[in-house]
């Protein structure tokens, strides 16, 4: 009797659970499903570009819904017009009220519409620059001061219904002009003007503005936000008035670039468009709706991808290596690998002796076996790097920088490091000895004596904890072991990420290992190595100071011509690779996966991957 009762209960439970599998699944067509790992924190574009600048906010927010005057056309990231109808006019000197300004006129495409059907005009563009200036971009924080630099931008004026004029206080470099100001997003004046004026009257204008919950805000990008169910999903629908649908970007083998829209007659040409075409991408969007599912961990996302619940995993860090070969075997899942724009590096405190000796750093760079780390330990899912510009950023990368100890065996590396150290005046109590023929270490170095005659004291090497990243922790240990072999008294200290950041910010360290992810234009060479960035709060953590370099990098920053700037960037990379304020080590490629039975991307080879373009939502085609 009892057995019957219990088994009935169990049966009922199983039946209910089974029902659950069948009932409650809805299907929909034309939806591009993506997995993201965190909720956005805001849908207010002021906040999303300001203090709340998380990558998730950009994925579901302005990256889908906003356009700027100019942008970078993927996959080659060619600087090209978006809302503008051509390149800005040359900057000319102009005197007004006893002040000298550099002015430039930008014309706007006339066919652009906001999602409420109203045209986008010069008024909107002027507002997009003048409102942040009125609020103070530094107070807005985040990306605002970089996009709208109050040091340079004096004002933007309306020069016609579809044309605006920029007034700058000094001649800007590429980073400030093309890769900064001209790419700022355009906001709808009709919607935001009342909100901003109200905020400006409030006691705390910034808080007032950022707290605004935008409802029914018109946008000019391909997608407009439809619903945000907190913690679960965000959906977008198509902007019915999106004017750039049908724009075809054509990339030529010779580097020329053409944007053409047959319907509206818009046309922009860069270079000489003849010869073979490399790629042509036509702007959609082709999907009817975007669905961002918020999953809290990568296992969940990968399982969803394999079972077909999501079509693509949108994550700026890509997928971990372990998923790669398992996903390759899964049916209808395509795995793509792309270079990223960044590097992992180690740096010494150059105000301390003997770290300020160039040969010391060169010896350390020789000792680090990047190829071993990448090919052996990571089994090819990382690439060695020697320059502060990653090879993936092909236009700016100098392939001929010195590569310390590349291709050497262990014993050759030790021999070379010993030679470098000796040339700088180092000596040993016990000098390391190797057998070059058999590639063996016969005797480890001990008691390294510095050129000033004193024994080198042991120093700390801050690496990530094993909990934060087991891989990087292990590399730190490897590097330390290699240094200890020649007698450099290094001591690995696993340190919490936040602690490393504040130590570097306060310049309280001996040496550390960290990573950067970079922008396209390599102005980071200024920020990381110019001596003006040395004091605490600046980005020259290692406190590298070289007057010649300073002068060159300043010129580079001011240079407005791409070709000249490129030549300068090459020279700067050579200096840095010789002086080694950063010892660049390696970076891992970005691994992404998508459902090939659902999606057809126009291209998948692009720097920093599909995620960099926010999932390529306006050019991807859905197969069913």
């Amino acid at each position, binding site marked *: 009797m009892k057995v019957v009762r219990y088994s009935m209960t169990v049966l009922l439970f199983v039946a209910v659970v089974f029902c659950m599998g069948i009932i409650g699944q809805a299907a929909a067509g034309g939806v591009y499903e993506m997995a993201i790992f965190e909720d956005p924190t805001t849908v207010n574009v002021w906040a999303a570009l300001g203090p709340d600048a998380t990558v998730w906010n950009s994925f579901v927010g302005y990256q889908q819904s906003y356009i700027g005057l100019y942008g970078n056309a993927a996959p080659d990231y060619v600087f090209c017009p978006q809302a503008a109808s051509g390149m800005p006019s040359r900057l000319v000197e102009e005197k007004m009220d006893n002040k000298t300004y550099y002015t430039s006129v930008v014309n706007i495409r006339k066919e652009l519409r906001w999602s409420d059907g109203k045209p986008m005009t010069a008024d909107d563009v002027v507002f997009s620059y003048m409102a942040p200036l009125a609020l103070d971009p530094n107070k807005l924080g985040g990306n605002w001061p970089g996009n709208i630099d109050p040091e340079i931008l004096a004002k933007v004026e309306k020069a016609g219904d579809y044309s605006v004029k920029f007034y700058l206080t000094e001649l800007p470099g590429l980073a400030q002009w093309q890769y900064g100001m001209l790419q700022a997003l355009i906001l709808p004046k009709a919607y935001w003007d009342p909100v901003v004026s109200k905020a400006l009257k409030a006691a705390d204008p910034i808080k007032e503005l950022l707290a605004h919950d935008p409802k029914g805000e018109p946008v000019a990008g391909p997608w407009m936000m439809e619903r945000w169910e907190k913690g679960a999903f965000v959906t977008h629908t198509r902007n019915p008035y999106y004017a750039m649908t049908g724009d075809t970007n054509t990339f030529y083998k010779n580097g020329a670039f053409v944007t053409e829209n047959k319907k509206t007659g818009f046309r922009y040409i860069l270079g000489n468009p003849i010869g073979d075409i490399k790629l042509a991408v036509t702007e959609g969007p082709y999907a009817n709706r975007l669905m961002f599912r918020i999953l809290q961990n990568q296992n969940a996302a990968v399982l969803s991808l394999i079972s077909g619940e999501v079509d693509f995993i949108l994550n700026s860090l890509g*997928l971990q290596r*372990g*998923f*790669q070969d398992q996903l390759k075997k899964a049916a209808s899942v395509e795995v793509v690998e792309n270079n990223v724009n960044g590097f992992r590096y180690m740096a010494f405190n150059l105000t301390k002796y003997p770290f300020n000796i160039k040969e010391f750093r060169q010896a350390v760079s020789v000792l680090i076996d990047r190829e071993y780390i990448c090919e052996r*330990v990571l089994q090819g899912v990382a690439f060695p790097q020697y320059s502060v510009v990653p090879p993936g950023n092909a236009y700016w990368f100098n392939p001929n920088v010195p590569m310390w100890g590349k291709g050497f065996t262990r014993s050759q590396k030790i021999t070379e490091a010993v030679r470098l150290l000796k040339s700088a005046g180092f000596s040993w109590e016990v000098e390391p000895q190797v057998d070059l023929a058999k590639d063996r270490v016969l005797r480890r170095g001990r008691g390294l004596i510095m050129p000033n005659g004193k024994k080198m004291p042991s120093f700390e090497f801050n690496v990530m904890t094993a*909990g934060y990243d*087991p891989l990087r*922790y292990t590399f730190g*240990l490897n590097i330390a072991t290699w240094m200890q072999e020649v007698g450099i008294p290094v001591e690995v200290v696993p340190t919490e990420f936040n*602690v490393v950041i504040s130590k570097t910010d306060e310049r309280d360290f001996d040496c550390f290992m960290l990573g950067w992810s970079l922008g396209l234009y390599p102005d980071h060479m200024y920020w990381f190595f110019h001596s003006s960035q040395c004091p605490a709060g600046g980005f020259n953590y290692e406190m590298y100071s070289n007057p010649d370099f300073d002068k060159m990098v300043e010129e580079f920053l001011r240079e407005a011509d791409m070709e000249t700037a490129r030549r300068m960037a090459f020279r700067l990379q050579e200096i840095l690779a010789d002086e080694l304020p950063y010892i660049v080590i390696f970076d891992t490629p970005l691994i992404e996966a998508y459902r090939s039975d659902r999606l057809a991307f126009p291209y998948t080879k692009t720097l920093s991957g599909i995620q960099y373009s926010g999932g390529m939502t306006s050019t991807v085609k859905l197969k069913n």
Partner: protein
Amino acid sequence: MRSLAQHWAIFRESRIGIAGLVVIVCFGVFGMMWPLMFRNVWDPNVYHPVVGFDPTMMHPAAPCRGHLLGTDPIGRDILAQLMFSTGREFLLGVLSAMISVVVGTFIGAMAAYYGGFTDAFFMRLADIVMLFPFVPLLVVVGSLVRLDMFSFAIILGFLEAFGGITIILKAQALQVKVRPYIDAAKVAGGDDLHIIRSHIIPNVLPLSFLYMMFNVTAAILSEATLSFFGVLNIDMSWGMMIHTAETAGYLFDYGRYWWLWLPSGLAITLFCAAFYMVGRGLDEVVNPRLRKR
């Protein structure tokens, strides 16, 4: 007061307790094999639990002759990691449990004996400590001080000492305090510390010992959970082994890379269950009503 032998006789009756004890002994032997193997059998370059690497194969490698339990994604031997971690788990569990029980017993006895302000102070302190959600609190502390295995054990021990265990041990001590021989000792002129030490604490001790077993379980599980979320500064432990597999993305196709999670996952469960079972066995020693007649 019963003698140790009597306690043992009662404990032996409990099949669950004995089973737990056997498992613990097995782990002890397993853990003690580590220094022997590392010094005499295994090549330190290949079998070091943290920086070891086997250049002869692709990783993670399935179990084979050289690596009986395979290797992890960065080429380290799983068996070596498992063995190496066993000793450290013992250290973590026993150290934190010892601290919590020694401190908790003392405070509990004091609170019961003196009552009044001492009692109220420690009881409210216990309330406060018990208010903290465990995992996030340790995340916070973890970013404050670099928590390695040793300091983690100490913090955990003190948190538990000032938390629930004090309350339970105080209740037990209260029952002892009202016994006539305590009054007799007082009349005879024994000082407070003496009475606490020689009359109250011995009577609370069996219960303390019982909670020590439960606390070992709690310590190991917390370490594993926090390691899994990557907020500890521990280079190798069972939790870290799973964390390594998880962060590298090998933890979702369960059948394929079973050696990356099964040995460590099983070790955590077995080890904790064993201590818990010994605790259950001790429960019958401490609590006569639970005993079989």
